[in-house]
């Protein structure tokens, strides 16, 4: 069944078929619990040791919906297991014990248990455990939206000015995003002044902060990462462990989504830089691109997520054909915030599987967007960094660093895994001006849920794994029109290519904008988009409205050609405002 549970085939009978992992060193209890859970029509797996449980969870990422564990276990403290599961897999965990002392229960809750059951456990208690799974999924979606929304908001909101700095306004957008509205609607409400933080964190995960975070994560090694370690490495005053922990969770989610999204990216197609009308539409491109982002670079920034599948999709895909038109149409559709959309399924709230394993070292990042000038895409910040004003300088997004570059200026919320690292890298793209960056990424507004548009906003360089993100690990100049690079760009390129095919989760890192994107839309590194179009400010229309992108796909296949034509200006009204220069 699909990981996201909700969209999995078992949905119709949910909660039946809920995949439960029970961990208890007491064989008697294990046997009883197994029987009880089976009576609830759940799918049960039992484990007598915490280590075994962890191995199982790691091996089969996404293979379980919920974990029930005893507090006391000989080989590992139940609380520790609880923490690990929460961090690595982001699954709901229920603790159980004979001991019902308040202090113990409190400890369980502190460590993240979503419930604490006292033995002997009653059937009715087990029958209800599905609510924790459900709740988490909903929250994840919300968080993602928030993150994305923030990003996208940024894009739209911030005029070119912001992008110029390559700065992402972080945090501010968050508030906007909260609403989860369509990108367009977001524009309306841009309350720029309203910087309320998202419901979750008070910390605004600026691009810089996120980059620090990613850097720390990469240094530690994704597998060994933990909030405390990251916090120490980051060395940011006033940043708490909780902030990092929740950010890490989101990051993981993001990465896993990217991975999922990757399937779809067709790196090649993505964003081909079709000669776009970009030249004139440069502006549009900006908008377009924003979604699609980033042509390769995007990946750098955008999804730089380290390694993990970050999408960076192909930021380069844009084989900048001249016109950079980065058709961002690609995946941009997922306006996912340009960021790396990893939203393989926006729905999937739990991307527990995030596989960070692949250091996404922004293969794409290397996307030398710099070379963009001609080939555009490389520069395109599409990498999902929609907001990133493409500074003409196309700095090759060195995503390879593991996204340190992420140009995503917008990143504010990086917390969302998608942080399309827009920033800086993308700015380099700007040289695209010639390129027509304008290629309006055709993000066909089809808002469709991203899922269908696999293109996730390609711009966001979704770390789309699918897209050969590889990108470019080496500072490949993205010029390569190689679509692959494009992919890395995380951009939507993948989206585009993927769009057709993958419509599904823009693995590219750019999660299909659709549902989630609304807010997050295309947070592509703002810089990226603008890249090239010479539009510095190309503000990528906030996020690619998924709907925008949705249509894009086909054309994009050329390797992300952001066909100008595809671009439906109407859709990008938002974008127009700022992007088109």
């Amino acid at each position, binding site marked *: 069944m699909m990981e996201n549970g909700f969209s999995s085939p078992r949905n119709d009978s949910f909660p039946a078929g809920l995949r439960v992992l029970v961990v208890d060193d007491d064989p*008697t209890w294990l046997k009883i619990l197994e*029987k009880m859970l089976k009576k609830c029509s759940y799918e049960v797996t039992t484990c007598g040791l915490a280590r075994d449980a962890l191995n199982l969870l790691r091996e089969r990422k996404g293979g379980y919906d919920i974990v029930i564990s005893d507090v006391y276990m000989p080989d590992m403290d139940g609380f520790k297991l609880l923490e690990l599961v929460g961090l690595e897999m982001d699954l709901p965990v229920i603790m159980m*014990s004979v001991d019902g002392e308040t202090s113990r229960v409190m400890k369980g809750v502190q460590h993240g248990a979503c419930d604490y059951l006292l*033995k002997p456990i009653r059937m009715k208690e087990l029958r209800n455990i599905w609510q924790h799974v459900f709740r988490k999924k909903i929250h994840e979606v919300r968080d993602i939206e928030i993150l994305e929304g923030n990003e996208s908001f940024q894009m739209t909101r911030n005029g070119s000015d912001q992008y110029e700095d390559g700065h992402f306004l972080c945090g501010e957008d968050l508030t906007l995003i909260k609403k989860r509205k369509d990108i367009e609607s977001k524009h309306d409400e841009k309350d720029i002044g309203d910087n309320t933080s998202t419901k979750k964190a008070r910390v605004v995960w600026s691009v810089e902060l996120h980059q620090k975070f990613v850097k720390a994560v990469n240094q530690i090694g994704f597998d060994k990462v933990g909030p405390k370690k990251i916090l120490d490495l980051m060395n940011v005053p006033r940043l708490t462990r909780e902030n990092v922990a929740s950010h890490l969770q989101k990051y993981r989610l993001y990465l896993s989504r990217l991975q999922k999204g990757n399937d779809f990216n067709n790196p090649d197609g993505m964003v081909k830089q079709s000669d776009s009308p970009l030249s004139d539409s440069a502006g549009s491109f900006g908008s377009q691109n924003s979604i699609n982002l980033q042509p390769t670079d995007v990946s750098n920034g955008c999804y730089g997520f380290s390694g993990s599948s970050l999408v960076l999709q192909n930021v380069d895909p844009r084989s900048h054909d001249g016109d950079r038109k980065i058709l961002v149409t690609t995946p941009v559709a997922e306006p996912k915030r340009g960021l790396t959309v990893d939203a393989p399924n926006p729905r999937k709230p739990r991307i527990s599987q995030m596989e960070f394993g692949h250091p996404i070292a922004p293969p794409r990042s290397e996307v030398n967007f710099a070379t963009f000038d001609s080939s555009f895409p490389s520069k395109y910040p599409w990498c999902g960094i929609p907001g990133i004003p493409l500074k003409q300088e196309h700095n090759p997004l060195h995503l390879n660093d593991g996204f340190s570059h992420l140009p995503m200026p917008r990143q504010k919320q990086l917390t969302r895994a998608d942080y399309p690292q827009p920033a800086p890298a993308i700015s380099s793209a700007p040289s695209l001006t010639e390129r027509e960056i304008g290629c309006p990424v055709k993000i066909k507004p089809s808002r469709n849920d991203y899922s269908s548009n696999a293109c996730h906003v390609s711009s966001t360089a979704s770390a789309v794994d699918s897209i050969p993100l590889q990108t470019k690990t080496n500072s490949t100049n993205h010029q390569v029109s190689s679509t692959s690079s494009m992919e890395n760009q995380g951009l939507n390129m993948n989206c585009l290519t993927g769009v057709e095919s993958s419509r599904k989760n823009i693995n590219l890192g750019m999660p299909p904008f659709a549902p989630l994107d609304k807010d997050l839309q295309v947070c592509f590194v703002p810089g990226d988009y603008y890249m090239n179009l010479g539009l510095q400010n190309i503000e990528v229309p906030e996020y690619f409205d998924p709907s925008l992108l949705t249509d894009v796909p086909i054309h994009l296949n050329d390797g992300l050609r952001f066909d100008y034509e595809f671009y439906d200006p109407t859709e990008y009204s938002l974008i127009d405002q700022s992007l088109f220069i």
Partner: protein
Amino acid sequence: MDRKQLQHQVASVRKSLFDQGYLDDQFNRLEDLQDETNPSFVEEVVTLFYSDSARFIQNIEQAMIKKPNIDFGKLDDYMHQLKGSSSSFGAKKVKNECSQFRECCSARNIEGCIKAFQQLKQEHATLRRKLETYFQLVKQAGIAGRT
């Protein structure tokens, strides 16, 4: 005895186990779980408990021998596990003895611990016998669990 009589006997044995406090409601719940897919589920659980708990009893014995340097922490751990285990099928008396033992442990009352342990072993063994008889009757009567 004919079937009917056996069934009556099963019922009365069962009732006495409850009345005398050997078993509590958890046992009923386990029997409720039992179904045709696994008609001897409860018996299997009890068997599993006894083989597993034998290990604990042994560990506790060994830890107790080491007096006066008894590792109370370890003892408490063992008891905690035994308590949890016995509660799984409603072994009320056994569970109570475990609690008793743990109290002596926390008070570092060696004598109290020894005494509590003796009682625990006794209850442990008694229940085993009684349940064995019960299950045999159940099999003979051809019924599982309550009627």
